[in-house]
């Protein structure tokens, strides 16, 4: 999703994928809703740094991540509570718990900032795994653009079937009127980031380019060059390895 040179892979990259990459590059380098562009890129850089973190490695190998204490190997730009979230989401998201989330929020990280952070870390993980699969280097992070975060919190976001507030499909209004694209069925994954609508939009764009449009997930006839059974097998094996129940 980042405008990076895929030519070393020696395979043709779809135009919609290239366009999604270009858009994400701009998205990541722009001021967000709650984090500045500098902070967003610091989160992105820290998420890559997490891959080599000794504490994360020990936790990943442990029966429970809570059994291992210590300090993260960090780039030193972000506060410790933010580093903890970035590293856990990048390296061991399948074993996050509500207790852990509540502790993070009680520690002072606002839900809005948390949601935007999760989006940045997840999107970059997707880019990096895509690059790894193609056999090319992950793209360099872009330079930050100027400007201030919009700090727009949708009034329609409410506590629902998730740890974070979300916008119900029937509650979309005003600035968020487009957020679900009129899809007949709005799965929770489509709503997960809706507390920060621009991140929800980016997730949909990324999903559509890399997999199928969210609105088409339930239609087994929708496919790409890879047939749908093959796509679902790949998806299911990835999710099993990530220990993701959803």
């Amino acid at each position, binding site marked *: 999703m980042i405008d990076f040179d895929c030519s070393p892979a020696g*395979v043709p990259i779809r135009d919609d994928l290239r366009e999604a990459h270009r858009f994400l590059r701009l998205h990541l380098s722009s001021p967000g809703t709650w984090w500045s562009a500098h902070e967003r890129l610091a989160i992105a850089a820290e998420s890559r740094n997490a891959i080599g973190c000794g504490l994360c490695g020990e936790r990943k190998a442990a029966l429970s991540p809570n059994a291992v204490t210590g300090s993260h190997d960090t780039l030193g730009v972000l506060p410790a509570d933010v580093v903890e979230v970035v590293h856990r989401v990048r390296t061991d998201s399948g074993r996050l718990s509500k207790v852990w989330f509540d502790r993070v929020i009680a520690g002072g990280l606002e839900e809005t900032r948390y949601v935007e952070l999760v989006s940045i870390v997840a999107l970059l993980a997707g880019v990096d795994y895509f690059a790894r*699969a193609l056999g090319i280097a992950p793209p360099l992070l872009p330079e930050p653009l100027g400007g201030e975060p919009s700090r727009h919190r949708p009034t329609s976001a409410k506590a629902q079937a998730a740890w974070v507030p979300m916008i119900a499909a029937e509650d979309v209004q005003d600035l968020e009127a487009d957020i679900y694209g009129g899809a007949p069925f709005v799965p929770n994954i489509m709503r997960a980031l809706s507390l920060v609508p621009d991140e929800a939009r980016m*997730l949909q764009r990324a*999903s559509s380019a890399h*997999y199928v449009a969210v609105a088409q997930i339930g239609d087994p006839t929708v496919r790409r060059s890879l047939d749908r059974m093959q796509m679902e097998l790949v998806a299911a094996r990835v999710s099993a*390895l990530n220990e993701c129940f959803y």
Partner: protein
Amino acid sequence: MEVDLSVVNGDAGSDAGVEHGARLVAFVEAVMQGDDAAIERERRELLAVLPAESFVDAAATIGAFNIVDRVADATGIALDEMLEAMSSDFRGKLKLERFASAANTRQAK
């Protein structure tokens, strides 16, 4: 078509009823484990049996679910009732309840 779901848990070395299923799963596992030599080997094997466009689709799907899985697990979203109804049979067969994230996904309801 009958699909051998055990391949999703890495329990089968067959195609599991999906064309080139074994090659696809081996490629996914290599990419997820990050072993460069294994990735290169499995990439060659996959490109020997699939068109390049299909290989890119496989790589993109790996990317997509590394996004979606993290978002789902870090936001604690509940499993949608419709998706649960559609997938309850294979979720049981795959023993997905063993994942820690299953507790979150259920609790959020």
